[in-house]
């Protein structure tokens, strides 16, 4: 389980998180929604320790995320970045098997390659993609490679940062279905941030609405449409009228 308690983070004089608290039960898929610049990615990076919160506590399975062996902590996570964040200098299979080629999870290269190809197949990519470089792939294929890399070491917790941004609706649907399948199949805890409502409905068990640096509403995805929360309602309808200012 991931628990964030009263997390604050500001960049200079711009407060982003202003007391965010959230709980993600083990084995469930939480989707955080919210407008651009509301701190969704910051929240996710705070959990991973990529950004240090100014105050507040973050617990993973009851343990303080700041304490303990950092490598062991990170080994439990997989992450799909917004732009896939593939390493340009490495072929696709080495991107996917990155963790398996170095560090404590190191495997022989042939075995790591086999796993990479299997994971690529899992996300709907053929084995001939393995030896290509990221720059030779389309945006959708890069996202899928990023997804394959996120699941390569079979992590317990997977983060998805805007998994469908920049993709056409069909490719978005494919990625959403893949994420749902993988999370269910692996029994992983998932935390996704997005403002794509079709992703929310496809991926989420629970939804949290982040606005003004705090969680305005959280609940099961089935209750989202009848939440009664003005922020959630405005976000779902996409209306310019409501508590969320259109010009920020």
């Amino acid at each position, binding site marked *: 389980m991931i628990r964030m308690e009263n997390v604050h983070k500001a960049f200079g004089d711009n407060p982003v998180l202003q007391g965010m608290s959230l709980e993600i039960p083990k084995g469930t898929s939480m989707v955080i929604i919210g407008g651009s610049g509301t701190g969704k990615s910051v929240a996710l990076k705070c959990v*991973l320790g*990529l950004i240090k919160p100014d105050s507040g506590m973050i617990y993973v399975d009851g343990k303080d995320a700041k304490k303990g062996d950092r*490598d062991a902590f*990170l080994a439990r996570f997989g*992450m799909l970045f917004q732009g896939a*964040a593939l390493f340009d*200098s490495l072929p696709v299979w080495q991107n996917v098997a*990155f*963790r398996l080629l170095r560090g404590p999870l190191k495997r022989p290269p042939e075995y790591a390659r086999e796993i990479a190809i299997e994971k690529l197949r899992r996300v709907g990519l053929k084995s001939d993609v393995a030896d290509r470089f990221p720059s030779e792939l389309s945006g959708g294929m890069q996202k899928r490679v990023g997804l394959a890399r996120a699941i390569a070491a079979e992590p317990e917790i997977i983060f998805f940062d805007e998994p469908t941004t920049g993709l056409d609706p069909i490719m978005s649907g494919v990625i959403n279905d893949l994420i749902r399948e993988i999370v269910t199949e692996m029994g992983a805890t998932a935390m996704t941030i997005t403002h794509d409502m079709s992703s929310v409905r496809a991926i989420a068990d629970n939804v949290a609405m982040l606005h003004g640096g705090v969680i305005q509403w959280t609940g099961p995805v089935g209750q989202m449409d009848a939440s009664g929360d003005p922020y959630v309602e405005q976000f779902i309808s996409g209306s310019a009228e409501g508590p969320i200012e259109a010009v920020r």
Partner: protein
Amino acid sequence: MNPFDLLGGLGRAVLAMLATFGQVALFAFNAISHIFRPPFYPREFIVALMNIGWLSLPVVGLTAIFTGGALALQIYAGGARFNAEAVVPQIVAIGMVRELGPVLVGLMIAARVTSSIAAEIATMKVTEQIDALVTLSTHPMKYLTAPRVLAALITVPVLVGIGDIIGIAGGYVVATQNLGFNAAAYLQNTVNFLEPHDVFSSLVKGAAFGLIAAIMGCYYGMNSGRGAQGVGRATKSSVESAAIMILAANFVLTGVFFSL
């Protein structure tokens, strides 16, 4: 304008400069310490050796040969004013080995390698590749910085040595083909005049300049701002800082080696 505002602005600029010096020093210390601490990344080190060393050879060679040739012409023309044309081999040798070889190679490395390291790492930063490295349990200082710094530390002295030889060869070609020097006598004078101390100082300067070039590239890459502008700024600042620091270090090292 209020003189206090001016003073305040000056004070802030000085403090910012001192803070940057401190940050660069800490970064350099950190980068060097990671060279000796596992895990090591041999593949990245070999790639860096190729990029910094082998692929810099053409630019270093061309810079050195033209500089050596021009130096021979200048010394001959200048020496003729007081009947000292015969000193061309000695001055070309000492000029290339002690000063021009290391400095020019250092500046070419700053232009070619520092810029490329800064742009590559800055691009990795803005495209979240460095965050991705961290989430994959890989320390960016170990994976990106340590191999490049070590490769520069090893290859730049070698490049300086090669640059010295090619520069002297440039002077030799010009002197023997255009200025009427006897080939055997030219080589003899060159070899006789140079001392091991000259060559040693040249190589030490090369190592220092390589270290500066790699560290400045990595530092500005790792601390780049967002977007294309951030990458551009990081690249520009890295080359400017590396070039200035190389020239400053050259002055200090020349003082240490030859003024004592």
